[in-house]
Each structure stands twice: as structure tokens, then as C-alpha cells.
């Protein structure tokens, strides 16, 4: 019995240090990134108010225009991410069921190609086919963001301990119940990591939407380039970067919040 006690203590100690480390990480995460974004945006706002802008710059960087661009950008990101999840998660589930498993490499290969294709090429080609605009942008972004969620859904489901699946079947859960109550909750952290990756990809790629009249912060950057206004171009770039940081942070928070307790 004496040899059991140190093990138990060791266990507890390990658990504690792990917990404190995780807590430190989450505090840094909870406060650090948003603070950085707020500071960055504050600095931008101060510059915007105090800088000596000519009429072209002032009209390109008017608050109304900037907020509209941010709004469009967020919309592009969120809508395409939602479509990605709605397509990729069920597809990933299907591709891990017996009978469809064999199709998985082919489908993942297709999604791989979608992501490997240069995003600007994908967007322009789709616009030639479907016509420019918001909807086409969403289609292009969806193709582009599909892979991480699909791959992580498959990896996450494959990573669920088969003994647990069998235990679920063994106690009388139906296949669907095993999926819903055991496999998906256990795969959720991996799936959510994929969603976060997709969000980051999408927020960056959405800057290209402007080329096919899809809106977003990319418009400010291209305006800066075509008007030879360095300040406008950098403003657009800074705003995209800040938004990307914020979205990445939201993705992480979402990941933490959806993580089932106990794992």
C-alpha cells in the first residue's frame, strides 16, 4: 500500500501544475489578444483623427466606409465559415462510417486541391463561371476553407478510442447514439481546432473578395494601391491584420468553450 501513496500524490501534483499552466495560458489568451487588438485599433483611431489627410485619403478612410468594409469582411468570414462547417462536418462524419471509409482519401484529395489552388486564381475563375458578387465569393471561400474542417473532423473521429465506441455499442447505444453522444463530443476539440484554422484562412482570403466585387477590407488596400496613397493601403492592411487576430482569438475561445468537460 505504501507504494500507492506516492503515486497518488505525484498524480495530484502533476494535475495541479497542469491546471495552473492551463489557467495561465487561458488568462493570457483571454486578455492578451483582445488587449492587443484594442490598443492597435486605438492607435489607428488616434492616427486617423490627428493625421493630416488630403481629400482623397479622407474620403477613402472615412469612418462610415471603414466600418462598412469591416462589416462586409466579417460577414464574408462568418457566412463562409458557417457554410464550411455545415458541409465539412457531415461529410467528415460520412467519410468515417463503414462503407464510405474508402472514399475518404479521394474526397480529402479533392479538398486538398481546393486549398492548394492559389486563392486568387480560384476566386477569379469562379467569378468567370458564376459571375462576380457576394455569393460567388462565399462559394470560393467555402471551397478554400473546406479542407481544415473536413480533415480535422475525420482525424478527430478516427482518433476516438475504438474501445469506447465498442463500449457504447456494448451497453446498447445505437450507431447514431454512439456518434452523437460519444464520438462527436470526444472529437469536438479536434474539429473546433479545424474550424479555427478555417476562420483564420477565411479572414485573410476574404481580403481578395474585392477583386470580384465581393466587398470587405481588401477594397481599402486596392484603393490605396490604385490611388497611390500609401496611408490608405497601410490602413487597410492594418485593419485586416487586427481583424484576423480578433477572429483567431474568438476561434480559440470557441474551442475552449465547446471542449467537453472531463477531457
Amino acid at each position: 500500500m505504501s507504494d500507492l501513496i506516492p503515486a497518488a500524490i505525484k498524480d495530484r501534483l502533476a494535475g495541479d501544475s497542469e491546471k495552473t499552466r492551463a489557467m495561465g495560458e487561458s488568462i493570457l489568451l483571454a486578455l492578451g489578444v483582445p488587449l492587443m487588438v484594442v490598443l492597435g485599433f486605438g492607435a489607428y483611431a488616434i492616427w486617423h483623427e490627428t493625421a493630416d489627410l488630403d481629400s482623397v485619403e479622407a474620403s477613402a478612410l472615412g469612418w462610415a466606409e471603414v466600418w462598412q468594409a469591416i462589416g462586409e469582411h466579417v460577414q464574408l468570414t462568418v457566412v463562409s465559415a458557417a457554410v464550411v462547417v455545415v458541409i465539412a462536418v457531415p461529410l467528415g462524419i460520412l467519410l468515417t462510417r463503414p462503407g464510405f471509409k474508402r472514399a475518404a482519401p479521394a474526397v480529402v484529395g479533392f479538398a486538398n486541391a481546393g486549398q492548394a489552388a492559389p486563392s486568387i486564381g480560384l476566386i477569379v475563375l469562379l467569378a468567370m463561371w458564376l459571375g462576380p458578387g457576394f455569393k460567388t465569393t462565399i462559394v470560393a471561400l467555402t471551397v478554400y476553407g473546406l479542407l481544415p474542417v473536413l480533415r480535422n473532423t475525420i482525424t478527430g473521429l478516427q482518433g476516438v478510442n475504438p474501445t469506447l465506441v465498442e463500449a457504447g455499442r456494448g451497453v446498447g447505444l445505437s450507431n447514431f447514439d454512439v456518434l452523437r453522444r460519444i464520438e462527436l463530443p470526444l472529437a469536438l476539440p479536434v474539429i473546433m481546432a479545424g474550424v479555427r484554422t478555417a476562420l483564420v484562412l477565411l479572414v485573410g482570403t476574404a481580403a481578395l473578395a474585392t477583386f470580384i466585387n465581393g466587398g470587405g477590407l481588401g477594397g481599402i488596400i486596392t484603393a490605396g494601391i490604385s490611388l497611390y496613397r500609401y496611408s490608405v493601403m497601410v490602413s487597410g492592411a492594418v485593419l485586416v491584420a487586427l481583424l484576423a487576430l480578433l477572429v483567431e482569438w474568438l476561434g480559440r475561445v470557441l474551442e475552449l468553450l465547446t471542449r467537453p468537460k472531463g477531457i
Partner: protein
Amino acid sequence: MTTTESTDSSSSRTSGSGGEISGAEIRLEGVTKRYPGQKTAAVDGLSLTIPAGEIVMFVGPSGFGKTTSLKMINRLIEPSSGKITIGDQDVRKQSADELRRHVGYVIQGGSLFPHMTVAKNIAIVPKLLGWDAKRIDKRVEELLDLVNLDPGKYRDRYPRELSGGQQQRVGVARGLAADPPVILMDEPFGAVDPITRQRLQDELLSIQRSLGKTIVCVTHDIDEAIKLGDRILILQEGAQVAQYDAPATLLADPANDFVSDFVGSGSSLKQLTLSRVSEIDIHPATTGRVGEPAREAIERARSAGDDSLVILDSRDRPTAWVWLRQVQGETLHEGDRETLTTLDERATLNDALDTMLTSSHSAAIVTGDNDRYVGIVDFGAVVDHMRAIQNEAQDRESSKVTAESDPEDHHDENAPMDDSGSADE
């Protein structure tokens, strides 16, 4: 001759059972499992009757179909041909999901769902069966109590916050949740340390004594099989039955060389595995109650000539075993039952020796049904018992040598006795 011995020991097992039989008979008839693309069948024409209320152990080297045979009972693996009935009902007559909700299933390490609390893990089958919340709560409480986990402390914990032994206990509770007549166990205690394993085995025996389920348990550990099993099925290649008998018969009269090799005849330790703690001299120690004035208890112990004290809780369960000089405070305190190692009455002498060796008292507390205190045993009692068995064996031996008539009989009787004789030297 050998049969008298086996009935003796098996009757001593059943006589200990306080509960009624709630299990159902399982019958396998010509059950075969053939995987596509494989020449030989994994299980070939297995026929077997598992009586209601007994523990039957499936033993054999890995790959010989014991787990496959087990999983065909709850149709986790569908037999290719043959018939399996549970309580006269063909398992194929109902849906597999429905069947499994009425057959308990316990696997190695407990296989708890890590994202569910202990209570939720246990409640999973009752929920599927549509029990109301109140009934489920009550059942969870009952079961945690049955497997010796304090419900208040453990019901809301997650599996990773439990030790291996505790997880396994919860796994057993989950298997028992909906009160199924039949429970299947696949290497249930394979993943825990030896002392915890022994304790879990004792607990299972104690639970079985009150519940009387039909339990089918797969193990690769012949000692575990001898300890737990009312009957042991030894499988050889292709899930062919090498022998299906009571443990004592198996040891005394192995059917063939495969069995005798596997059982490892020649080890006198097996004899220790066949004898139960209840067969040896259990003597009383001074006991005290939690909350009782310490001085009274100490005086009682002194006048009885004891230098230690077993502290019992309100349900007669031992919670601590303290030296008198360790007793502090006005009243007796409750100890931590989980760290106190006790021996079930049905534990084997092998376990008893193990427990004594790790105890600072060189003895062990014996418990009976519901973990109630029975008494203590020490090394002397075990040694006396072993000596008695040897003497008996030698007496029989010498009387036989003088009488010497039936060589076959001689051989039968001789096998296990030889070992105890050699252990003496």
C-alpha cells in the same frame, strides 16, 4: 475420489451465497464464427451451457476465441451459425441494441466515457430504457455504494479524476445499472495493479453473493479464473473446449496435456488459490465504533490483550486498523476505507498472504457481505491450514501406498497433493 474434493469446495462456495439467483441460463449450441477470407473458423461449433447464477470464466491463450465467444453472446460479433439463448430466448429474435440493454457489459479499465461524469456513465443504460430521473438518481447512488465508492464524493467526478481501480469499479456499476440478468466481462481487472485487482475480485464475489447474476468473464489469468469461477472453460485452438469444469476438478483432473500445461499443475501455490479465507481460522479482534470514546475502546483492547483496534463505521464496515498508541483525541475517528486493505471471506489464501505481507500488522481484516467486519486472520492460521491439508494428503498417500490397488486412482489423487508435499521440504 477427486469428485468428493471438488464438490466440497464448490459447496463451500455456494453455501456462502446469501442472495437469490437473479441470473438467467445462457446456452450456446454449435456456435461458429468464420471471418471471410480466413481458412479456419475463429470459433468452431462451440456448445456450452452456462447455468443461471454462476460465474463462468473463459480462459485460454490469446487468439483462441474466448473474446469472440463472449462477444457473440451480446452480438457485438454476429455468429456465422449456431444458436445462442439467454433464459430460453434466442438472442437473434430481438434487435441487437435492445438485447445489449439487458446484458451488462464490463470491459478492461472500465472504458468509461471520459466526457461524462461518473453518475452519467452509470446512468447511460437506465436512460436508454426510459427510467425517470428520480429512479436513475437512486439507482446510481445504490450502485456506487455497492462498488464501495462514496456517492457524495464521486458521482460528479470525471473518469480522469479517478484511479484505475475506481474507474474499474464504476465500469462494474455501469454494467449492473439496469439490473441485467446476465453480465459479460472482458478482462475486467486486467489494467489494475495486483493489490487493487485482488480487492476488485473480492468485491465482485461479494456483489455476486448478494445478486446471483449469471456472469461470463474472459481472462487470461488462470489464478483469477480459479478464484472467481464457479466453472472454468478452457479453450484451445479454434475455441475448442479443452475442459469445462469446476476449478477444483480442473486442478485435480486436467483433461489433457494442454489443460495441465495451461493450469500449471506442479505449483503448490494453486492450492492456496483453491482454499478460501472462510475455511481458515478467523479470530476476533477488539473493535471500536466511529465516535465512541477512545478511552473505553483502548481499555477494552488492553483487557483483551490486543495492542490494536479495528474501527468500524455505523454499517459495521472496517474503516481503520490502528495501534493503540496511535489513537488520538477523545473519540474514535473514521478512517479512509479506500486506503484500508481488507480481505473478503471468499478471497483465496493466496490473496490473504499477499495482503498480510503488505500489512504492518502481519495479519488482515476479513470482511463478509456488504463489507461487514468478520474478524482477522494471521500467518499462523494460513500455515496451520496448509499443514492440515498436507497431513491429510500424506495420510491418504500412505494408506494408499499400503493398499495400492488402482493405479489410475492413484494418479488422479496424486497430482495436486504431490506439490504440497514438495513444498514442505
